[in-house]
C-alpha cells in the first residue's frame, strides 16, 4: 500500500533500532512532523530532543556521531539546510562525521505555508559542499533502501522527502537500489526524463500519457542521488541524441538539471535539453499539487514540453 515516504522513513528507523542500540534520532521539536512519535515511544533512550534550535541539532548529532553513534538529525528540509548550513559544512562534511541529515517535508511539501517553509535551495547549497551524498528518493522502496544504506555508511548523507503518499515501487523490474546509481523505471527511444524525488511520479505519468496518446516512448530515470551523480548512466541515455528533460522539486538553479546539463555540455553531448523545476520567482501559493501544476511539473506540463521538443 502506498504511503508517504516520511512514514516509510519512520518505520524503517524503528526496524533498525530494534537491534541497533547505537541508532539515535535527534529532533528539533520535529518528532510529530517527522512521524517519529512511535519511534520515541518505543525507543525513548534513542531519541534526543534539542528543541527548535537547528544549529545545535546538527552540532549535537555531530557530537553523537563522533562518539560512534549512528545519528539521524531530523528537521524540516527548509530549516535544516539553511539555518544549520554552517554546521553541515564544517561539523558534518569538513570534519567528516557520519551524520545522517534528514530533510523532512522537502521542496514545496508545505504548500500554502509559503516560501519560509519551502526548500528549493537544498540541492544547490549542498552540491557545493565537499563530502556529502545527496539523496531524494522517489518511492517507498527507494526511501527504505536509502535509510538502510545510509545507516551503514560511515559518511555524511543528506536525504530529503515529502509527506504526500508515493507509490510502493515505480520500477516493475525492481532494480537494486544503490547510492550514485540512477534507476531506469521505464524504457523508451524517443526522449528521456531524468527526474528526482517526488517529481519522478509526474514524469512517469507524462511518459505513460505520451505513449498512450501520441505513440511516443520516453525513458524515465529516478535519479535519486544528486551527488555523486550517475554520469555513466547519463552518458548512456544521451547517446541516442534524443531530447532530455530533467524534472525536480527544486529551484532550476543549482539542482539536478544544472548538474546534468553541465555534464552533457562538458562531454560533447548536444541533445535538446530542458530543465523543469521551480523558476527564479516568487513561488505561487497553493498545495504541493497546485504548485507542481502551475510550474509544469505535471503529467500535462511535462507531456506538452516533450511534444514541443520532438
Amino acid at each position, binding site marked *: 500500500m502506498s504511503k508517504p515516504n516520511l512514514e516509510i522513513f519512520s518505520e524503517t528507523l524503528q526496524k533498525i533500532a530494534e537491534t541497533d542500540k547505537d541508532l539515535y534520532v535527534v529532533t528539533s521539536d520535529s518528532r510529530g512532523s517527522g512521524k517519529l512519535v512511535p519511534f520515541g515511544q518505543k525507543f525513548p*533512550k534513542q531519541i534526543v530532543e534539542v528543541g527548535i534550535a537547528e544549529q545545535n541539532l546538527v*552540532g549535537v*548529532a*555531530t*557530537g*553523537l556521531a563522533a562518539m560512534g553513534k549512528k545519528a539521524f538529525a531530523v528537521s524540516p528540509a527548509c530549516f535544516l539546510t539553511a539555518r544549520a548550513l554552517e*554546521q553541515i559544512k564544517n561539523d558534518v562534511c*569538513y570534519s567528516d562525521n557520519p551524520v545522517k541529515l534528514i530533510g523532512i517535508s522537502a521542496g514545496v511539501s508545505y504548500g500554502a505555508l509559503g516560501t519560509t517553509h519551502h526548500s528549493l535551495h537544498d540541492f544547490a547549497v549542498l552540491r557545493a559542499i565537499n563530502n556529502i551524498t545527496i539523496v531524494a528518493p522517489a518511492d517507498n522502496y527507494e526511501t527504505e533502501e536509502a535509510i538502510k544504506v545510509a545507516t551503514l555508511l560511515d559518511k555524511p548523507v543528506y536525504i530529503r522527502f515529502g509527506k504526500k503518499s508515493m507509490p510502493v515501487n515505480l520500477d516493475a523490474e525492481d532494480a537494486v537500489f544503490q547510492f550514485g546509481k540512477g534507476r531506469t523505471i521505464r524504457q523508451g527511444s524517443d526522449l528521456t526524463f531524468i527526474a528526482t524525488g517526488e517529481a519522478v511520479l509526474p514524469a512517469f505519468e507524462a511518459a505513460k500519457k505520451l505513449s498512450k496518446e501520441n505513440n511516443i516512448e520516453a525513458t524515465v530515470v529516478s535519479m535519486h542521488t544528486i551527488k555523486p551523480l550517475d554520469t555513466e548512466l547519463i552518458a548512456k541515455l544521451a547517446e541516442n541524441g534524443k531530447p532530455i528533460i530533467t524534472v525536480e522539486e527544486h529551484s532550476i538553479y543549482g539542482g539536478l538539471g544544472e548538474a546534468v546539463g553541465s555534464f552533457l555540455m562538458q562531454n560533447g553531448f548536444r541533445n535538446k535539453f530542458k530543465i523543469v523545476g521551480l523558476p527564479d520567482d516568487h513561488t505561487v501559493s497553493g498545495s504541493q499539487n497546485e504548485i507542481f501544476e502551475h510550474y509544469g511539473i505535471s503529467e500535462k506540463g511535462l507531456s506538452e514540453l516533450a511534444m514541443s521538443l520532438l
Partner: protein
Amino acid sequence: MTENHLSLIEKSKEYRKKILKYIFNAKAGHTGGDLSIIDILNVLYNRIMNVSPENWHSNTRDRFIQSKGHCVEALYVVLADKGFFPEEDLLTMCQYNSPYIGHPTKYIKGMEQNTGGLGHGLSICCGNALAAKKDNSPIKVFTILGDGEMAEGSNWEAFMFAAHYKLDNLCAILDYNKLQITAPNAEVIGLEPLDKKLEAFGWAVRHVDGHNLEELENTLKSLPFEAGKPSFVIAHTIKGKGVSYMENTLKWHHGVPSAEQMELAMEELI
C-alpha cells in the same frame, strides 16, 4: 608554590616561546589569543585530561574541542610537547600544502574536530557528553570558548541543551581576555553580567585567574562544580600575556612580531 606548579610554570614559558617562534616563522597566527589561552591548555593537557598519543584511539580518552579554533598555534605547541607529532613539523605551519593550517583539523593527530567557524565547539561537546552519559562512560568533555564568540546564538542553544540534559561531565572554559578583533567586548556587544546569565541558564559557574596555574588546576580538579549541572569556568585572561608590549593590545590579535620584537619577547620570557 609547590614543585609541581614550578614545572608547570616552566612549561608555560617554553610554550610561549615556541608559539612566538612558529608564528614568526609562518608570518601568521593569532598571537594575542594564543598567549591568553596557553596556561589553560597547559593545565588541561598536563594535569587534568586523560588524553595522550597512547590512548588517542581509545574511547576512554577525555574529549577536548577548541571552539576558538583560530588560536590553533597554542594547541599545536602543546600537542607536539605531548608527543602527538614531531615539533619540527610546525616549521611548515601555514605554508603551501602543509596540514598544519591556521585552524584545528582532524588530519593532525590529537585534534578531535575541525573548528574555525565560531559557535560550533560547544554543541559538538554536548553531543559527546550526552553519548558518554548514555554509555555510562566516565570521560569528561572540555571546550575553550572565546569571549567574542559568546555572541554566537548557537552557543546559547547549546547552553540550554547542556543544562536540560544535566551534562555535568561537560566543562566549558571561557578565555575572557575582554578584547575582540574590533574593540573591547564591552564596546562591541556587552557580555555582562555573564556569571548571572550562565547561572540562569542552569550552569554552575566559577571565576578563575586564567594565568594562575595552581588556581586553574585546583578549579578543574573539582569538576563538576555541582552534580547535575554543566560547569562553566570564566577564566580571566590577558590577551598577549607574557610579552609586555603585546599585553592588552588590540593589534596583537593576529599581529606577527618583527625580528627585533622577537628578540625583545624572548628576553622577557626567560
